[in-house]
């Protein structure tokens, strides 16, 4: 039977850590408020960008946990078929998703009549920033899962909440960085 006190006691620490990390993402957004105010189109893609990153890293992490539990991969950094397959799949998914997001953002912005020198800046920004972020996240996901698994803990309970939060932080900083470079 479920007990209110117990669930709260177990959830509070992880949630508080996630809240603290998410403030770092907020810090980046807050610091770049001026730039975002000048480029309203970028702000529209922020939630989608975060959602794609979050999904890719949680799918990757939960697939890795299952593979580790089933013994399909060992927690050592060696070339393995299962790992290669997963990495390629995630990269192909990101290319399609980020490209489509960029095109959709370009369409929304030209529809709203925003004035940009070149509307194709959106696919360029989402694709570049997306692929950099996803590469970092794939590596962190493998690293964290291996580390947690070799400590004898279950990666299912720890890796997904941590990685989605870290993913937001990495995603927002890379997106803002690439935007300021391109503009």
């Amino acid at each position, binding site marked *: 039977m479920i007990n209110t006190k117990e*669930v*709260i006691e177990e959830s509070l620490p992880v949630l508080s850590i996630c809240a603290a990390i998410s403030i770092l993402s*907020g810090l980046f*957004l807050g610091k770049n408020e001026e730039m975002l105010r000048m480029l309203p189109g970028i702000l*529209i893609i922020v*939630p*989608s960008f975060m959602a794609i990153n979050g999904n890719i890293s949680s799918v990757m992490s939960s697939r890795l946990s299952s593979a580790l539990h089933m013994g399909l991969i060992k927690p050592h950094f060696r070339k393995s078929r299962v790992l290669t397959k997963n990495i390629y799949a995630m990269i*192909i998914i990101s290319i399609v998703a980020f490209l489509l997001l960029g095109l959709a953002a370009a369409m929304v912005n030209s529809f709203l009549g925003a004035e940009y020198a070149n509307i194709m800046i959106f696919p360029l920004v989402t694709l570049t920033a997306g692929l950099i972020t996803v590469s970092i996240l794939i590596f962190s996901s493998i690293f964290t899962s291996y580390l947690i698994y070799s400590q004898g803990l279950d990666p299912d309970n720890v890796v997904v909440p941590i990685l989605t939060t870290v993913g937001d932080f990495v995603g927002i900083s890379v997106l803002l960085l690439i935007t300021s470079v391109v503009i």
Partner: protein
Amino acid sequence: MAVAKSMLRIIEETLPVILLFAFVGLFTGGFLNGVIAESAMTPGLLIIVPGLLGLRGNISSALGARLSSGLHLGYISTKKFSKGLRVNIEVSILLSLFISFVLSFLAWQTCMYIGGPCMSLVNFVLITVMTGLMSGVLMSFTTSGIAIMSYRHGLDPDNTTLPAAASVGDIITMICLLISIKFVLGLGL
């Protein structure tokens, strides 16, 4: 060959969901744009946005996962408002309240630290807690509804509740944030 084939399967099963999320995210982005339009009057507000979205995602997905287990194990009924369901909803609302309180303090501290213009601590707390509580109540009932309906129709709530809750959660949070800003600005503290 085997590698290419199973890779294709991962892509086929994952890509549609991710694209759906990205699409829904564009609407959230539209609301976020509305928030920044308000944020001239509420400086520093943007700092709590990722925290609020993350909090909602974490609490709703944990609730969805617990409800699914409860339905499978049978301690949550699809017919009446059982004790298991009540406790789960209670827990989610309490956690939303606690964490948004923590979040507002952290955000205020961070805003002071970067030295930009900041709204008062009272405004930070009021806007964050109001958004957290409102979206917490709305999302707890929505998530429970989706889980129970899925189970009643013979679907596995594990597969339906999480993606559904995550995609509506972001939009609901942004709408609640906009309402809270308007309300708190209206109070004029």
